[in-house]
């Protein structure tokens, strides 16, 4: 049992923050706004740490791509029980254009470099809702994937994943190395306890540049415009069914 698990953690705007679009409509306001670990990434970290506690895997490595602040997110993962961290330094224009394709190239390169048996990611990030990184990473590595996992069971050199799909639950068995993406019901992430936060400061975070991994960060996507969703219009109350029908007809809805 010398398995190493790579967990991707993304720094996103905190889920409780009210999002504002920048006045120039090029994106969302991020300056001075509270950021934290993507909730699905928390679930991914928790699953990896649980596997380590059951002694089914040996090491949990937390990875994050971004500017200096990405290290805060890695620290949270370390405080939850990850053993060490890798910060892939991406900033400025490269960071603005960082999308699932670029991140999955980075993760694929790291997985090969770090001799990984399992990559666990959150199913999607709450800022872009892409739900692509896990799938793309598996494709680049030509590894099997178990996405939307609500249960993960290690069975020797295979892993059984119960997936949440539209029709219900699907069980797949993957031969490792494999990629898993975590869905909401996989587990309840633990709090970082105060003693663990203090211990996390002694854990190592390596800093790596994408170039060192041979990854090209060029993006083939251009964001043209970001707008707020349309304001919800006030509704109106009607007294009878007849009135409802006549109003719907007036509005051309019937």
């Amino acid at each position: 049992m010398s398995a190493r698990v790579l967990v991707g953690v993304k720094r996103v705007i905190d889920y409780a923050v009210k999002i504002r679009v920048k006045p120039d409509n090029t994106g969302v306001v991020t300056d001075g706004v509270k950021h934290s670990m993507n909730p699905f990434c928390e679930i991914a970290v928790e699953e990896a740490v649980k596997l380590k506690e059951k002694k089914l895997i040996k090491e949990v490595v937390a990875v994050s791509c971004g500017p200096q602040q990405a290290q805060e997110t890695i620290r949270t993962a370390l405080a939850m029980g990850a053993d060490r961290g890798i910060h892939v330094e991406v900033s400025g224009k490269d960071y603005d254009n960082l999308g699932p394709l670029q991140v999955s190239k980075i993760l694929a390169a790291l997985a090969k470099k770090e001799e990984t048996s399992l990559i666990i990611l959150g199913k999607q990030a709450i800022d872009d809702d892409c739900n692509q990184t896990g799938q793309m990473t598996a494709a680049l590595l030509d590894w099997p994937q178990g996405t939307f996992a609500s249960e993960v069971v290690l069975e020797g050199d295979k892993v059984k994943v119960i997936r949440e799909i539209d029709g219900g639950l699907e069980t797949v068995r993957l031969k490792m190395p494999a990629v898993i993406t975590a869905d909401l019901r996989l587990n309840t992430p633990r709090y970082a306890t105060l003693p663990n936060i203090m211990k996390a400061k002694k854990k190592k975070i390596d800093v790596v540049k994408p170039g060192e991994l041979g990854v090209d960060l060029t993006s083939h996507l251009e964001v043209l415009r970001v707008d707020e969703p349309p304001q919800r219009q006030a509704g109106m109350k009607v007294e009878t069914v007849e009135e409802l029908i006549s109003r719907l007809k007036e509005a051309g809805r019937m």
Partner: protein
Amino acid sequence: MGSEPVLRASVQTGLRFQGTSARAATSTLKTAQGGFRFELTDQQKEFQEVARKFAREEIIPAAPSYDKSGEYPVALIKRAWELGLINSHIPESCGGMGLGIFDACLITEELAYGCTGVQTAIEANSLGQMPVIIAGNDMQKKKYLGRMTEEPLMCAYCVTEPGAGSDVAGIKTRAEKKGDEYVVNGQKMWITNGGKANWYFLLARTDPDPKCPASKAFTGFIVDADTPGVQMGRKEMNMGQRCSDTRGITFEDVRIPKENVLIGEGAGFKIAMGAFDKTRPPVAAGATGLAQRALDEATKYSLERKTFGRLISDHQAVAFLLAEMAIKVELARLAYQRAAWEVDEGRRNTYYASIAKAFAGDIANQVASDAVQVFGGNGYNSEYPVEKLMRDAKIYQIYEGTAQIQRLIISREHLVKFKN
């Protein structure tokens, strides 16, 4: 499997994240060393985050029912203990984290935001432990502080009596030396955690001579709660912080081994008072947490409730009320932070600690009352969260040194400083 439920968030976590952390999160540090700073360290921000999350997600939903039933919040205390939020002052040599008072205050404010009843039960541990931390010998520290980090145990500070609160030198509980033991007889009252403590810090009079000065007449003891002769009174039903366990304790021929004396006979008064310099800032922080909660609840309500065709927050009378509440909360926070920082720097902070406690206690009451006012008729009702805050706030002007005693201390310190 279609719709995504809200991720582990209760309604309350939508409240605006306040305090130094949110806005300081991404400010770049201009000064590398020295100078006056209002920035928290990364570790302090992380600690604050854990305490905040615990308070918002676990304390707030449970607090109303604990308030109604008066039941001791065992589950919450156990959880807080597991997260390392309690017993923060215990030195590392005894299995604790040896955190400073400032860090403890950050945590306390967040927990108090959730419920000051829960937070007081937790804070009473710090108060009970402080005499041992500042005056205990290695054996006493290992024995009585060590056990607190191994299991979620409580302790209590046993000084006040039915006939003596502010006038500590007037306590009558007697401790007579008999061989290698002291025999204690007397009555204590209003002891927080009295019924749940594993051990007490007890102050008793060892010199019966009424002419003996306070600085020599009293002795501090550590008493195991299960010592024969220790009788717990009934749980008192108080105005607020109702889930906190407050009782009278009777000592009837209780025998305490001499090994449990702190420092030595006659040293008790100084130890009992010395603890306050370290425990008053956290109490002030607790009052600030309550005030912040009152402000947030009132603000949220004012952005929902309409009258005369507009949101009540648009009416200047209400907006000004909120402004004054905000002024008080910000200043209370600055006051306790200064008091905590001073003592962590190794300086005597009595002046600042008293100012912080006096101010925070007073404003907590004002802000809670104003919050009820903003809510109007609804505020008076138990279905809304603010009447509890008003009931909970009152004790902050009474315990840990009354508002009047604080003023005595501040005037004395101020005059001494001025004359020198």
